């Protein structure tokens, strides 16, 4: 009932693991604090990612043979073409993070389509590889955004939650759900002014973050889920946190029943094995909820 049949994943694997990197080059922070680029000290907190963090993550992934998916805004790919080529040369996969951390709920359909296709084509031109995956950069999920992503040529998204298995939107776009406890940013983001996080929270103990992730991984393996780790070069690509990452990757790579795969592979597997969503799935209940409140299907 609560554990999925072992046969869901390929070759009898018990669970899937996607290591993802969000290479924002600070555009996420600029979207929240527009004067950040004029604050050279503070902005360098995020610029560290492109300067040092990307290489350190690539080296670490190479040491453990990790097939990660790297989400990159189109603008960042344009500004850092050599970094993008380094990523692809290391057998890593690219996916889109939009153009420049735009909030798609504020954009009309034509602008949305333009930015989505522009992001995809820029990433493809710089890397020389097809791009199928997408991560919503910020803001809320616009109504029927799955259709917008499909018409821009995307096959999957890793933006929503509500589940710990991939699921299919009504359009057929695959969703690989993500969870904040498996994202390094809530644990490690810090800057004085502008304040990240807004409450200037203490940094956590590194061994506590490692322990949380190991407990989550063990549970996903037990329940047969799709574990998605989200890393940022500026937060996890540092020398001091590298051992945390290495200890974690050591654990996930020592089992022969864990399917370590990139987003394209997981989405393709799900697309060919998807069952109809149960009526109790959050995506279906959300539709009923909107109708209850007088919002018509659109």
């Amino acid at each position: 009932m609560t554990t999925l049949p072992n046969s869901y994943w390929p070759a009898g694997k018990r669970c899937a693991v996607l290591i993802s990197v969000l290479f924002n080059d600070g555009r996420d922070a600029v979207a929240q604090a527009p004067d950040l680029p004029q604050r050279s000290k503070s902005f360098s907190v995020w610029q560290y990612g492109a300067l040092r963090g990307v290489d350190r993550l690539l080296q670490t992934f190479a040491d453990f043979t990790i097939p990660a998916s790297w989400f990159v805004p189109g603008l960042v790919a344009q500004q850092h073409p050599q970094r993008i080529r380094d990523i692809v040369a290391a057998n890593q996969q690219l996916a889109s993070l939009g153009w420049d951390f735009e909030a798609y709920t504020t954009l009309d359909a034509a602008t949305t389509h333009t930015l989505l296709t522009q992001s995809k084509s820029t990433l493809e031109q710089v890397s020389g590889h097809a791009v199928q995956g997408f991560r919503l950069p910020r803001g809320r999920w616009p109504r029927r955004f799955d259709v917008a992503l499909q018409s821009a040529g995307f096959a999957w998204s890793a933006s929503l939650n509500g589940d710990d298995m991939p699921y299919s939107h009504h359009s057929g776009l695959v969703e690989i759900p993500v969870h904040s406890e498996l994202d390094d940013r809530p644990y490690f983001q810090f800057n004085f002014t502008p304040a990240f996080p807004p409450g200037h929270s203490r940094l956590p103990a590194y061994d506590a973050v490692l322990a949380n992730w190991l407990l989550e991984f063990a549970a996903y393996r037990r329940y047969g889920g799709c574990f998605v780790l989200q890393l940022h070069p500026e937060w996890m690509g540092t020398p001091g946190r590298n051992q945390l990452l290495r200890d974690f990757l050591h654990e996930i790579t020592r089992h022969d029943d864990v399917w370590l795969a990139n987003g394209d592979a997981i989405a393709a597997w799900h697309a060919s094995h998807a069952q109809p969503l149960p009526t109790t799935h959050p995506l279906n209940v959300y539709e009923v909820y909107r109708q209850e409140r007088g919002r018509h299907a659109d």
Partner: protein
Amino acid sequence: MIPSPIRWPAGYRSAVALAFDVDGPSGDAMLDDSLLDNLRYFGEGSYGPYRAVPRLLDLLAQYQLHATFFIPTWVVTHWTSLCERILAAGHEVAYHGHRHEVFFDLTIDQQHAVMEQSRAIFQQRLGITPTGFRTPSGDWSTATATLLHTFGVKYSSSMRGDDRPYFHPAATGRNGLVELPARWDMDDYTALAYFEDPAFPSGLDRLADYRAVMRNWSAEFQGYHRDGLFWTTILHPKVSAKPGRLSILEGLFQTIRQYDDVWVARGNDVADWWIQQYGQGGNK
């Protein structure tokens, strides 16, 4: 060791009522309709009834623990078979508003309407008339306890200010509702809830170390047990029954099961005991 100040059933030193609030996506954002355009927040809440509760039920069964589930009836209407499974496993289901309304903000007529709607849904969907109530986020108003009494509610688990049951003042007669107080110390939001839109915690504080949370919660139980008191929890499956966090609950359950003189009961069992033992004398 000091003797327990409370008379518990023979052989028991303390009482525990494990309690889970299955809020799902209900709450403030549903009440003000901002949830309509926030699929991510809807998904964060719906994960509770959709994925977390079934695993929690398995874990409770593994440790042979019966608990109380406070469920807004909007959740009952959308995850009815899950609620049936909760009841079939021997757990108690009790009132928690319809859409997690803030009773403090409602007139007594509005509170009455919420209770009527909830009672009808519990009766029609699940064939039960609950006897317990936990006020959804925030306070209740001065007239709420009397209102609850007219719906046949015997106990509330809403207050924070004691470590043992007590009687609310009665509108008529000797005693009002039994209160089974809970405390923030055992609310999983304090350590584990995190969301950015809307922001909780407001300063976006870090998530706690799961191992430390397990040790805190176990220490809480052990302190109440040592002193022979009553202990309950404010746990939300969408928060503390996410996959890795089930290890926290499992550690807590293991701690509880190390003691053979703790009475693990549902809220209504404890309320019945309290009325039977102390109903004549009022508060001690």
